[in-house]
């Protein structure tokens, strides 16, 4: 039992794990965690299994596992569902949307966080207070005004000029930049980098932009990667703004939502759509699992 010796002292210590009392608590922990893990995955597993069932089976057999499934049948189900769901275009669109979101997010919030942290021009304090307060404002109050500003960008009134941003990705792209929480996250990341980098580089004749792009940005990479993962995953889940804005141009979450009303789609095929929609986030999760579960020390909002 070498692993028990490696136990870090916490609520339970190494010595506790050798007593019956400690062992009982530990056992209960393992049991509760196992049940939680089960609850966490059963809905997902049920969805996948149902996606591979045959139509009659869903409405007749009512069993958790598909009956007499074979490899060939599974492949046929996959191909048939993909063909009848016609999600290809949505996938490409969502990819474009996510990349755009990422670009706007990093440029707008990264720049903002950097200036608030290091350059601190006059007015920073006021701006920072505004940003912090914005973070906690319920977005409901601006839902309709925002829609109007997408209708008549950027003046939000129909005085005769302005662009109609509906059915384009611009509302989502620009919205990805309006993330005050991320501004603070970037600010905290830059705060943790020493000022002497900036000073040293400036003595060597580097411009403010040079300092940012050549020195600070590479140093802040961990946060940028963490944020990129979040933004990419969020883009694959965002359904409300696309619901308001998009029509012809469609993205995966929106297509999935609309398919619910489509009576020609059978339940198993519909479940396959849910599976397809979840694949990209799971790929991201699989690649960056350590980073996502490790988290980033987000810290507070102190000025």
């Amino acid at each position, binding site marked *: 039992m070498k692993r*028990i010796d490696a136990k870090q002292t916490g*609520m339970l210590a190494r010595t506790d794990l050798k007593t019956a009392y400690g062992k009982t608590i530990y056992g209960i922990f393992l049991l509760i965690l196992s049940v939680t893990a089960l609850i966490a995955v059963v809905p997902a597993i049920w969805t996948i299994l149902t996606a591979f069932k045959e139509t009659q089976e869903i409405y007749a057999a009512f*069993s958790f596992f598909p009956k007499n499934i074979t490899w060939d049948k599974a492949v046929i189900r996959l191909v048939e569902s993909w063909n009848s769901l016609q999600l290809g275009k949505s996938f490409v669109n969502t990819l474009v949307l996510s990349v755009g979101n990422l670009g706007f997010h990093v440029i707008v919030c990264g720049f903002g966080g950097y*200036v608030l942290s290091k350059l601190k021009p006059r007015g920073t304090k006021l701006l920072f207070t505004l940003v912090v307060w914005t973070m906690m*404002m319920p977005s409901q109050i601006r839902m*309709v*005004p925002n829609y109007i500003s997408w209708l008549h960008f950027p003046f*939000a009134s129909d005085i005769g000029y302005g662009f109609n941003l509906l059915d384009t990705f611009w509302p989502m792209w620009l919205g990805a930049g309006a993330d005050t929480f991320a501004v603070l996250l970037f600010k905290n990341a830059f705060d943790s980098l020493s000022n002497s980098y900036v000073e040293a580089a400036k003595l060597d004749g580097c411009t403010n932009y040079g300092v940012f792009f050549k020195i600070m940005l590479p140093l802040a990479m961990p946060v940028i990667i963490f944020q990129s993962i979040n933004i990419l995953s969020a883009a694959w889940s965002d359904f409300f703004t696309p619901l308001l804005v998009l029509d012809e141009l469609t993205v995966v979450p929106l297509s999935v939502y609309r398919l619910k009303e489509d009576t020609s789609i059978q339940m198993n095929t519909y479940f396959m759509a849910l599976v397809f929609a979840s694949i990209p986030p799971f790929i991201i999760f699989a690649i960056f699992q350590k980073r996502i579960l490790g988290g980033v020390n987000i810290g507070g909002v102190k000025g």
Partner: protein
Amino acid sequence: MMNTRKKLKRKFNLRDEIDAWVLLLPMVVILYLFVWRPTVMGAAWSFFDMKAYTVKDFCGFDNYIRVMTHTQFLPMLLNTVKYVLWSLVIGFLPPLFIAIMINEVIHFKNGFKVIIYVPAVIPGIAAMLMWYFMYYPDQTGLLNMILSKIGVEPKQWLNDPSFTIVGIIIYSTWKGFAGTMLLYYASLQSVSVELYEAAIIDGAGPLRRLGYVTRPAMEGIILLQLVRQIISVFQIMEQPLAMTGGGPNGASTSLSYQLYQYGFNSGGKGTGQAMALGVIIFLILIVFTIFYFWLNRKIEDRC
């Protein structure tokens, strides 16, 4: 004295100021266009008669009166409070306990983390529709399928007015708890091992260590999370939108969902009311927001 120190610290340099504002520009413009201005406009336009998305004449408190005298206004407010209360009853403690358990466990620690995180990876809309089908009122739904196996009559689940809010909250807890759990887990890492060891020397058992070492260290973040959860659940909208459509008979309609209905599903007649309702939600939540910042400052000052 203060003045000279300030002057030494912040030497005014026009070049730096300009560079800083150039880098800040994207953030300020986007926050102005999509957050600050719409928020102010939303408040202002709530006093105007709207024709679809065009502002017409000033109408005083008409929009507010229409919102408040809606026969369903009080039930909706009550529903929203019910969402919050149920989310506290069902969803508040599990993430904390699971975080503590994962922190203590040495077997399959990473496995548990990965599996429990699965619901958080699934895109929101796909997860909502998954649960919509799990709650399906006939035997194709997972829950009724399980009930029928143990010989219980199928239940109505989301179609049952007394269960629908609980059902949505169970889903939200399932979906959101891994994220909260990671937050708690991260701050558990910062509880010092020495404190636990000192407690052991003083003869404190596992439960006492939990009560006298873990609890005081975690109190701050737990309280912050409590306020944060109240604020976010009060704004619940996507879940009723995708899972129940606010039904049955308005039993799951929250204020925010009603705002969406006013704003985008009323044939343009309710846009003014949507903004008035936004202001009402804002006024209710501002109390919690101020409390949150006060609390946050207090906790950070203590550290």
